[in-house]
């Protein structure tokens, strides 16, 4: 089966998966006990008003009708309006999403690459003193609560000892007044000075999984017969280690989606500690204000983020491992 068909198959299944997730999310949100209407009721609105609201928002129609209507709008890009700000959900969320992607994207990637590289070094040095102790730093950063790690870095660089970096927010208030478009903010030095500490925190937190999984995966591969054969045929250490890395990267890739899901949890905490206006802090705000449309959209973004992660992993798999994408035609020789 050619690689193209393999990619096509994966794309179809990913899209189906996202659709399935939207159904699950929709049902979950619609059945929440404390939805918007009842919250209004608690804040003193009379029952008629609540009925009016439910009618206006079409909350009384049967579930599947509501879902199809929601899906119809979603395809067009209209995810409803935010209850809290009365602004279309997409318009409200996109700036926060951008802030999160700019922070989390590069940080997770760096953490993953550094972690895998370090883990490979450890794996190849199995049994040595360096390997025995070398595993400690990633474990340390993996076991310190991410927000506490943020506090430590703030303490070291922004508050206590050397007062170099700003303590919170993405950009200081005076700069906000100068720029008119949201994305111009990314060009100011001020933004990048705010960016440094949360970025560092995420990188350090993200080291643990790739480092430990790559280390044990390299050790596993080093025990395989083909690795022995590479050694016996006298291939250079560089070639052997590259082949080991290729093999060992498969399990590391397999846990990428899991790490992505974990990264979102971390992101929420780090954005709260650093007061970073990302999707995490928006999530916390919308939950407290029971802003269901915004919440639904955020969770949809999260779902797409995870499905996309799986999709990328599948494609990378197909590229690295021929057994998957190139069919088997073992003839009797």
């Amino acid at each position, binding site marked *: 089966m050619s690689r193209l068909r393999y990619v096509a198959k994966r794309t179809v299944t990913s899209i189906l998966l996202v659709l399935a997730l939207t159904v699950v999310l929709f049902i979950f949100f619609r059945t929440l006990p404390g939805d918007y209407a009842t919250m209004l009721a608690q804040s003193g609105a009379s029952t008629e008003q609540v009925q009016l609201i439910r009618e206006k928002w079409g909350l009384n129609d049967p579930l599947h009708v509501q879902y199809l209507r929601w899906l119809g709008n979603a395809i067009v890009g209209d995810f409803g309006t935010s209850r809290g700000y009365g602004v279309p959900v997409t318009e409200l969320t996109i700036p926060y999403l951008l802030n999160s992607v700019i922070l989390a994207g590069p940080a997770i990637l760096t953490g993953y690459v550094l972690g895998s590289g370090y883990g490979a070094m450890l794996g190849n040095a199995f049994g040595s003193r360096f390997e025995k102790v070398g595993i400690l730093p990633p474990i340390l950063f993996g076991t310190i609560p991410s927000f506490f790690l943020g506090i430590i870095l703030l303490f070291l660089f922004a508050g206590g000892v050397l007062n170099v970096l700003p303590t919170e927010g993405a950009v200081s208030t005076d700069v906000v007044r100068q720029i008119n478009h949201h994305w111009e903010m990314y060009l100011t030095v001020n933004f990048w000075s705010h960016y440094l500490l949360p970025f560092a925190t995420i990188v350090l937190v993200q080291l643990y999984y790739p480092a430990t999984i790559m280390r044990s995966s390299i050790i596993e591969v080093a025990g395989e*017969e*083909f690795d022995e054969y590479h050694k016996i045929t*006298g291939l*250079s250490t560089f070639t052997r280690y590259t082949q080991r890395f290729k*093999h060992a990267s498969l399990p590391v890739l397999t846990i990428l989606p899991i790490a992505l899901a974990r990264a979102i949890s971390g992101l929420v905490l780090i954005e709260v500690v650093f007061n970073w206006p990302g999707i995490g802090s928006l999530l916390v705000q919308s939950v407290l204000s029971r802003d269901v449309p915004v919440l639904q959209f955020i969770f949809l973004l999260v779902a797409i983020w995870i499905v996309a992660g799986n999709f990328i992993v599948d494609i990378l798999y197909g590229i*690295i*491992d021929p057994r998957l994408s190139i069919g*088997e035609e*073992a003839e009797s020789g």
Partner: protein
Amino acid sequence: MTTDEPLLEVEGLDVEYELTNDVIHAVSDASFTIQENRYLGLVGESGCGKSTIAQSLISALDSNGEIASGTIRFRGEEIQDLTEAEFKNEYLWNEIAFIPQSAMNSLDPLMKVSEQATKIAKEHTDWSKEEALDRFRELFGVVGLPESRIDDYPHQFSGGMKQRTIIALALFLKPSLIIADEPTTALDVIMQDQILNYLQEIRRDRDLSMLMITHDISVVFENCDDMAVMHGGQVAETGSVVDIYTQPRHPYTILLQRAFPDVRFRDRKLETIEGEPPVLHEDMDFCSFADRCPWATPECRQGSPPLEPVPEGAETPRGGGETAADGTRVDDGVVTHRTSCIRQEEMADLADAHLDEIEAKRTLTE
């Protein structure tokens, strides 16, 4: 055919493995020689040190293993003290190649078969990539595999095809010695027969010696010219296959032959050898077979037994026809027959009793 100097000479080889608080004497005082263009079978049960010897020949011992003493001479040059890098530049794959035990999964699944060949060529020769590919393609044909498939991945090959690819890779740089570590153990009997037959074919049109390591004595008798029987890290007996079959002079060799099932004589009671091979923790300054040997005497336990030559036996070799069909089976005195049993004279009549029984069996079934 044979210059006076043997291709490979191992003298008094000791190999030890260091564990956290223990030393394992895996090989003690092992000596044998491989002549040019002859196959030597290294046979013994599990844990007797035969794989350790194979690894020490190409300095591929595990990290905690080292050659404690003794010499390994390849064409007269001592190679046991070479570092891995030195050995790799001068000898590895150009002179000495290797067929691993589990050939089935020795090919890297993420690497095209041709890539494996070009990488080996890049490491040990100065051929260009194209030249290497052409040579490998031609060798693929010789090995009986479709030349068009050298760019396939290992998972697209059947078990037999992988086995032949490994043999092709071993022959790739025209080595003069191939070490095959249990080449057919994991195979079914028909595939084993095909591969062993093929290992005989490749020596017809090229100068090639082989060190074949196996636990199966019948594979050695049929496929090798000379052999060395190992027990507990020591070489019990060495010599030409014909010598050791017709005049065995070590109790272990005799009992091993009698314990080995032979499909032709089905009702012969199989000989059992009591006890277990010794655990090699202390220095082996005694005959490792002493505890299991029914004819052991106190002297056997004082000092590790040296390999003594066995005086020339009867003119016509017993236990078989005058000469085998293709004439190679007559002992041509190339390799001296040596045994490490200090009671080798008494062993003579034990061997004769064993051979009488085989001949009686043979006449019965004719």
